[in-house]
């Protein structure tokens, strides 16, 4: 096979287009509920069903969500924007035009910075983000597999029609399937952190297409691209792009030409297949929607939204890496849960520039706290008892050697169950670790007197006997004795004749 030679010759050029359903209470242009999974055709009104005479009025929160998405990606927000009609007929699109944005999107430019699995940095610029409305959902009947090909008729549920939809278009700057997935993951996390979407691919609130082409390494011109659709998970995005790159390589290797077309990803067979024999030139007849008036994004409004942007995932990554010294795998474990990240960073912020403290806090959070949350089946922001302050106190007490790690665990359990301040509990109940040799010495003497056999065993050379004695010291001290100190005191006494 000439595979290795070809692989050296070509590089992939990938651009991503995503549709993201925005999380709002009501739809884009009417007051119907924006809710996934309702009974078919029950979330409809004259507006979203496009009854004669009904008129759209845009949802302010949806507009703000898109602006915030842009700000989070460092994009410029143009001072003027408008809605246009994109005209085409489709049975699940009630008006037979989609209210969208053509030449003046809410967001232009921006960049998504991401980290790969190994922690290395990557980025991809955005072309634009615009706001539009979703269509209804068609179920194709009679083809056996739900596909449109071979179907006899279709059933339409319009509940989703009019749900606010954000379209994000990237520049063709991604060079591998891995980077495409990393880009998508950071895009997804960004919207999750902003709280503007559920971004669930399985529920369709995040849908993406990929434009894929290949070109000789070093070339600055683009090859002919294909558009890949029907990818239902990040894994299928990765597989589909990988498979399409390979397909294009073989086409070129065999002296063929890549046709510009739309290809569907076939998850079961692991290949892409042609969906439309040739790319049709659509005539969407865009024009400004005369039912709507323009948007002017005054500086004060934009600045107010900027102030509300909050933590974004790449910044979180960098802080977790720098401030907490966490490894890429640990950060990945945390990053998908913005509430957990915020909780940790809030904890860490209580002792700025103290890496040891940050690490301790992170370890407690990732270990015992996560376990306890899982046992209780709650998320960190689904409980009110354990606060960042409490975690910080626990970590501080443990670091300072003021309590044993056993006590720390018990304290966390208790605080999670009943709330309260660990420091206060420790002070009130005398749980502080015994680190005063004079106090432990008394217990050591008491234990040695009561465990003559163990003492004799040790002195007879049974090294293990010391463990039993330390255990007894811990038991008598109710777990408060510093175990290292107890052991060294024991050894000292046992050496004496």
């Amino acid at each position, binding site marked *: 096979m000439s595979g290795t030679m070809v692989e050296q010759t070509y590089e992939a050029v990938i651009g991503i287009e995503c549709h993201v359903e925005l999380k709002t209470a009501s739809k884009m242009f009417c007051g119907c509920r924006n809710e996934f999974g309702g009974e078919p055709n029950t979330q409809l009104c004259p507006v979203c069903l*496009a*009854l*004669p*005479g009904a*008129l759209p009025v845009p949802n302010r929160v949806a507009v703000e969500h898109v602006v915030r998405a842009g700000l989070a990606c460092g994009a410029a927000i143009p001072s003027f924007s408008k809605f246009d009609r994109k*005209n085409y007929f489709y*049975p699940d699109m009630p008006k037979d035009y989609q209210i969208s944005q053509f030449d003046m999107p809410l967001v232009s430019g921006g960049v998504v910075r991401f980290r790969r699995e190994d922690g290395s940095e990557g980025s991809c610029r955005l072309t634009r983000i615009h706001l539009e409305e979703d269509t209804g959902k068609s179920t194709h009947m009679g083809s056996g597999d739900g596909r449109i090909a071979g179907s006899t008729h279709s059933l339409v549920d319009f509940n989703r029609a009019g749900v606010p939809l954000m379209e994000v278009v990237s520049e063709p700057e991604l060079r591998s399937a891995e980077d495409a997935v990393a880009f998508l993951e950071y895009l997804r996390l960004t919207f999750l952190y902003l709280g503007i979407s559920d971004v669930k691919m399985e529920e369709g609130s995040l849908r993406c297409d990929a434009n894929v082409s290949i070109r000789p390494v070093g070339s600055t011109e683009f090859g002919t691209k294909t558009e890949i659709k029907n990818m239902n998970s990040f894994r299928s995005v990765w597989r589909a792009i990988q498979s399409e790159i390979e397909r294009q390589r073989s086409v070129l290797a065999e002296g063929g030409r890549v046709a510009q077309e739309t290809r569907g990803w076939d998850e079961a067979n692991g290949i892409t297949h042609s969906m439309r024999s040739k790319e049709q030139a659509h*005539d969407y007849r865009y*024009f400004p929607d005369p039912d709507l008036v323009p948007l002017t994004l005054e500086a004060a409004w934009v600045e107010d939204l900027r102030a509300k942007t909050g933590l974004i995932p790449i910044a979180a990554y960098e802080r977790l890496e720098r401030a907490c010294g966490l490894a890429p795998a640990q950060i990945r474990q945390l990053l998908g849960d913005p509430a957990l990240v915020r909780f940790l960073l809030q904890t860490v912020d209580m002792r700025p520039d103290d890496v040891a403290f940050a690490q301790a806090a992170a370890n407690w959070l990732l270990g015992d706290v996560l376990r306890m949350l899982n046992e209780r089946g709650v998320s960190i922001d689904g409980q009110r008892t354990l606060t960042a302050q409490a975690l910080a106190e626990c970590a501080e007490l443990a670091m300072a050697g003021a309590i044993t790690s056993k006590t720390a665990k018990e304290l966390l359990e208790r605080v999670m169950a009943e709330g309260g301040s660990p420091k206060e509990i420790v002070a009130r109940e005398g749980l502080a670790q015994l680190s005063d040799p004079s106090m432990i010495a008394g217990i050591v003497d008491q234990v040695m007197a009561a465990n003559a056999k163990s003492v004799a065993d040790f002195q007879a050379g049974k090294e293990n006997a010391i463990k039993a004695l330390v255990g007894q010291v811990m038991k008598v001290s109710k777990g408060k004795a510093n175990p290292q100190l107890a052991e060294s005191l024991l050894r000292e006494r046992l050496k004496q004749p």
Partner: protein
Amino acid sequence: MSALYQRSATQIAAAVNAREVSAVEVLGAHMARIERVEPSIGAFLSLTADLAREQARRVDEAVAAGKRLPLAGVPVAVKDNMCLQGTVTTAGSKILAGWVAPYTATAVARLLEAGCLPVGKANLDEFAMGSSCENSALGVTRNPWDTDRVPGGSSGGSVAAVAAGEAALATASDTGGSIREPAAFCGVVGMKPTYGRISRYGLIAFASSLDQIGPIARTVEDAAAMYGVMAGHDPMDATSLPRPVEPTLPALRTDLRGLRVGLVREFDTKDLGEEIDAAYRRAYAQLAALGAEIVDVALPHAEYGLATYYLIAPAEASSNLARFDGVRYGLRVDGANVQEMYGKTRAAGFGPEVKRRILIGTYALSSGYYDAYYVRAQKARTLTAGDFERAFAACDLIACPAASSPAFEFGAKSDDPVSMYLMDYYTIPMSLAGLPALSVPCGFVRDGSPGGRELPLGLQLVAPLYEEARLFAAAHAYEQATRYTLDRQPPVVESVR
């Protein structure tokens, strides 16, 4: 006192509020009148007697409970492109024949709240596209002054119903003259407010940036009262003006002292024939006699009005009418697949004029022609608006004909769409500029045939944006001084007994 059906809305409301007559009695008189004259007029596509009776009882109860309603017990005809919950609403089209609206247009809802009784749905040119009412696919409406003639359009049913005493008031809509031209043809008062003054929610769209609802009445005072009820901000219409509505009734005047009335150089009436020319000269002289200062103004881009309008309106219409696709409501003609179903449904459902406008509008928006046609027309629209701005620097009102001829005979202009379009020559520029304008009867002309009937003419008054109160005030003064139709009924009244 005159028969109930001859009384003005203001008189009816006063009598009902004073409990001199009940709303039920008023309705009975009008239903009887409808029964007598409707066979020769055909103003209605459907009667809504049950709804009106129910409403009449409610009004009587409210009045008995001490409430005063501005339009208590006033029978109103609702143009059939406005939704009224529970009534068949067709826009005069086969594609909507039998469709029952599940909601009520804002303007209509406000009339009901004010005590109006909805007696029926008035005929119109299909989707309000036409100037004679001959484009209705569902009925023929005749001019009460001469039943061999058209009532004008598109609001032909509305004006005929009011002229013939079938209703005291009617709702109408105006896109390029659809209120003013038929009002002139039938000798009633028809008023198109500033764009955005009356909510379009529930008005079946023709051209969204031009459509405006307005009142039809037999007196200026009635029109002003009806306007006052319908006007005002509506959050359901994004193009609805948020500014307060100036009260119109207290502003009504009996003279025109201190007002400068502009006569438009480009709207010379010499070419309209000697008799018509003389009628308008008399009208202008009357304005001067009432104290107005007559000034000369120019609308240099008036000649481009028609071309501008016949690109913008059809372009918007082509998109607005896409929703009539046989999927969710209305007519469906089945086909082997959805695409075939669309083509057949729309071919069977739309009449020739609607098809022409969909075709020309689709063309004006299509790839390669958008800038040359649609954008250029939008720029020409800016020039027209600028003309008026300059003209209104020199005058307070503009006076000109409401139509270029009196009502014509059925079929007279059916062969040539452009000659029909020319009927709107005097009304289109105001629509493009969004200005308030009104047609008030200004005399009669003989139709020229032996034994021919006298046909009414309409004087159009135009005010700057938002100056509806000034418009009504001046029209009232003119009407009270001339009384062309105040003391005179259309001959149909005598012929049908």
